[in-house]
């Protein structure tokens, strides 16, 4: 019982894989859905892509409490800013508000985010804001523990000026690859596409994702496994 108690008192963190890519006309944000406390999955269907304004969304990773609090503050500031400005906030302003909070509280916070959106001045933009509070504008950004497995993948597959469908397919493929290799990522793949026409949310359940190297078909019951016995034991 003691081991369990210690585990469940761990801070709620999001192992995570988060991705943001630009395409011609907007951006696509993607994330997995696993939130873990130690080795227990506290929420297998969380939504890590949070809305800041109508046209700007943020992908959260790291400590769940810290990233939720930062998003709440930034949503509040952006709301005031929009009222004072008289028009929708730009992605740059949203990202910089996040950066200011992350940088000025770097000793306390443990959260890395990706801010993405569309505004009429710059079009679709992605800003990566990792631990420490740097802000960097990128054509695509990856973050979270699962992103380690995606650097090589993106180096090979990324190109400018993709269409919307290509970008969405890329994001889903990338998140599902990371889920396959990273223990702290899992669940479903959520994507949010933002362009001049608005925002579209999509959802890809875990069992609909493609199977990668050595992954097994989901089994419904032990009886199925008994019907089709596993591979022969290895002979040296």
């Amino acid at each position, binding site marked *: *019982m003691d081991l*369990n*108690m210690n585990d*469940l*008192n761990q*801070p*709620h963190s999001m192992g995570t894989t988060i991705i943001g890519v630009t395409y011609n006309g907007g951006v696509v944000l993607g994330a997995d859905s696993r*939130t873990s*406390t130690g080795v*227990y999955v*506290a*929420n297998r*269907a*969380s939504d890590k892509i949070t809305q800041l304004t109508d046209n700007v969304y943020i992908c959260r990773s790291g*400590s*769940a*409490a810290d990233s*939720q*609090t930062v998003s*709440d503050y930034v949503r509040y500031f952006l709301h005031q800013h929009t009222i004072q400005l008289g028009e929708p906030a730009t992605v740059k302003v949203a990202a910089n508000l996040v950066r200011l909070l992350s940088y000025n509280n770097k000793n*306390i916070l443990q959260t890395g985010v990706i801010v993405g959106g569309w505004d009429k001045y710059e079009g679709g933009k992605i800003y990566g804001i990792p631990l420490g509070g740097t802000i960097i504008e990128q054509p695509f950004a990856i973050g979270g523990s699962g992103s380690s497995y995606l650097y090589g993948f993106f180096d090979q597959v990324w190109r400018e000026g993709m269409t919307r469908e290509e970008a969405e397919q890329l994001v889903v493929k990338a998140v599902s690859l990371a889920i396959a290799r990273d223990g702290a990522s899992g669940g479903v793949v959520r994507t949010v596409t933002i362009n001049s026409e608005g925002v579209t949310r999509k959802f890809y359940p875990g069992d609909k994702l493609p199977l990668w190297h050595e992954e097994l078909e989901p089994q419904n019951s032990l009886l199925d496994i008994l019907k089709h016995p596993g591979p022969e034991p290895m002979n040296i």
Partner: protein
Amino acid sequence: MSKSAVDVPFQGGFNFDLCRRNDMLSKKGVKPPSYRKTGTTIVGLIFQDGVILGADTRATEGPIVCDKNCEKIHYMAPNIYCCGAGTAADTEAVTDMVSSQLQLHRYHTGRESRVVTALTLLKKHLFNYQGYVQAALVLGGVDCTGPHLHTIYPHGSTDTLPFATMGSGSLAAMAIFESKYKEGLTKDEGIKLVVEAICSGIFNDLGSGSNVDVCVITKGHKEYLRNHLLPNPRTYVSPKGYSFPKKTEVLLTKITPLKEKVEIIEAGEAMEE
């Protein structure tokens, strides 16, 4: 502690004045009292008409059960209840505090409280204390926007779920929910599932035990079923009864009624400025 020239008024937050005294006492061999924790299994689920919350009733102080029938489902508002796991003092204090804040808010706005309001007040408070207020909560209620169920962790993060479990028995209860939960449960099915999940925690987790409390909240109506199920009755009572050996002998019994010292004036006049 050096005395400052001007005494700073008590600001709030934690006061660490007694830490040196505690240090000195523990060096002398005086063990500090262990915290009363609610080992706990707490659950919540959304059914077709609203929310059902459930909890066990065991409170522990280290390895000892200090309360066999404590109440873990706390009142927040007429339409919102909150189950608490973790340090008993923290869950009581934080739910009481937010419950009064909600009451004041109701007076200000003239409206029924919303679950997201309670959620934000709780998460703000817990985040500010960076996890030192060890309260893990399952908050559920029905307001004008519909039924809501949230979990709140000690560090201040929240999740919104159709079914949730917290506490040391959460893994046992979650196993039940994951295999049997479906959308659109009726009230009886929901209560049965909640009871099953809590019983799974009671029988398989050492930190949870005793009885099952259930609370059903629907639009405009709530049912607090205290001790809905008692699966751990005291089965053996010695027929000889218990007699405790006499330690102190009674030599004399004398009862002296107290004399009235205060005169009661009947029908006095109302106070005037």
